[in-house]
């Protein structure tokens, strides 16, 4: 277990270092978030839909696309120069590699998502005073599961010719549960509804996380064999 965590940390540290150097995924994800929010902002008919009413849906749709963008990059760096072979040849368990990739993806997705939440405040004037912490916790809960699914699918598509196209096609259907739950929770939080109204949705998110994290851990090693 200790060795698994050591290797996971080594892999995660490398992934974050590569991203900090290149900033490829960070810049494209934040730019995409800003563009989506801008489009929604101008596409909204102010006479029919208020900005506050639209904010939760726009937030979660943006988070979904931003998440896919970030996850697409996760194995792209391993594809370049055949670096994945170097990882797979190392005397470490594939599960440790999954944990490392997962941890780096989760950290990175959460950083970009936090910025996205702040952009939503900027573009949609959402009043997050008193609810920012709860919304960020919900974002974390939703991300923990879909990053696990995304890490598995990113690994699965890494050796395909159309990896950038395949990942969104595979991943987006799996984003439906966390997006629905996220919208429901955020809407109620912004409306100042009691916690009892969101408890059920939070349980769904927790269950989603447990199921897909466990599946990811079990499935990932076999996906790595050609």
């Amino acid at each position, binding site marked *: 277990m200790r*060795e698994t965590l*050591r*290797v996971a940390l*080594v*892999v995660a540290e*490398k992934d974050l*270092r*590569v991203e900090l*150097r*290149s900033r490829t995924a960070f810049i494209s994800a934040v730019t995409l978030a800003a563009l989506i929010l801008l489009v929604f902002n101008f596409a909204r008919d102010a006479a029919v839909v208020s900005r506050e009413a639209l904010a939760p849906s726009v937030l979660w749709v943006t988070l979904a696309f931003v998440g896919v963008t970030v996850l697409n990059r996760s194995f792209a*760096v391993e594809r*370049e*120069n*055949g*670096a994945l*072979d*170097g*990882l*797979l*040849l*190392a*005397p*470490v*368990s594939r599960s440790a590699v999954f944990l490392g990739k997962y941890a780096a993806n989760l950290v990175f997705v959460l950083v970009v998502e936090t910025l996205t939440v702040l952009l939503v405040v900027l573009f949609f004037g959402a009043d997050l005073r008193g609810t920012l912490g709860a919304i960020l916790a919900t974002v974390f809960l939703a991300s923990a599961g879909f990053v696990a699914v995304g890490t598995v699918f990113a690994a699965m598509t890494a050796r395909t010719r159309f990896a950038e196209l395949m990942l969104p096609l595979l991943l987006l259907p799996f984003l439906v549960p966390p997006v629905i739950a996220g919208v429901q929770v955020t809407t109620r939080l912004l409306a100042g509804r009691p916690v009892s109204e969101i408890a059920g949705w939070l349980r769904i998110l927790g269950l989603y996380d447990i199921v897909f994290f466990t599946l990811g851990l079990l499935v990932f090693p076999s996906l790595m*064999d*050609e």
Partner: protein
Amino acid sequence: MPSSTPSEPALLEASDLERRFGAARALRGVSLTVRAGECHLVAGPNGAGKSTLLRLLAGLARPSAGTVLLEGRRLAGRPLRARQVAPPAEPALRRHIGLLSHQSQLYDDLTAGENLAFAARLHGLDHPEDRARSGLAAVGLAERADTPVRKLSRGMIQRVAFARAILHEPRLILLDEPFTGMDPVSSDAVRERLDALLRTGCALVLVTHDVLEAWELASHAHVMVRGEWMRSGPRGASMDGFLHEYREVVRA
């Protein structure tokens, strides 16, 4: 030319390897036994299946049929005689393999030193930064430790990739066109390093089109055409003879 005795136990034993991609058969019944101190030169035309063979020997791909044993333990494939073969490879078995493929396996955005230190950490080596520094020094790139890989020339990248492949002191080193892009001085340095490794008991499987570069290292020479050995065995004394045989086989 380092030598070994047939009585020595095999370090690597590949038996009747086949690899199919759909209907196409990239490898057809290829067997190879490699002992410590041997260097097996594998030549063949483009698309012959040489790189596929290396991936199977490294355990990066599973054979459609046949078995690869490393130190008597199953690295890939189904056991030929289940009772006599140990369980499938555990991660520790991969510690004995070093692979220099036609891709560098390096991260462009990391420096040469960071790439090697990462590899050292993955392999659980002590003092990874020191190992990275000495690895780069061994290929004459100590002064490039802090240069991002994307800013290195092709030949330098190949030398860093070579340093990465042997960093953890593997017993079996698999090389796919190791001298590509290198200047003559660098090629000589790498060849000398390989020769030194052979003398310490390492074994090499060296895939190349450039027989001239690798001839002096080789103890065995093989020619692969369309996924099959057309010639396989001790290399013989004359390189010209081998090249003549190679051309005849390929033309046929």
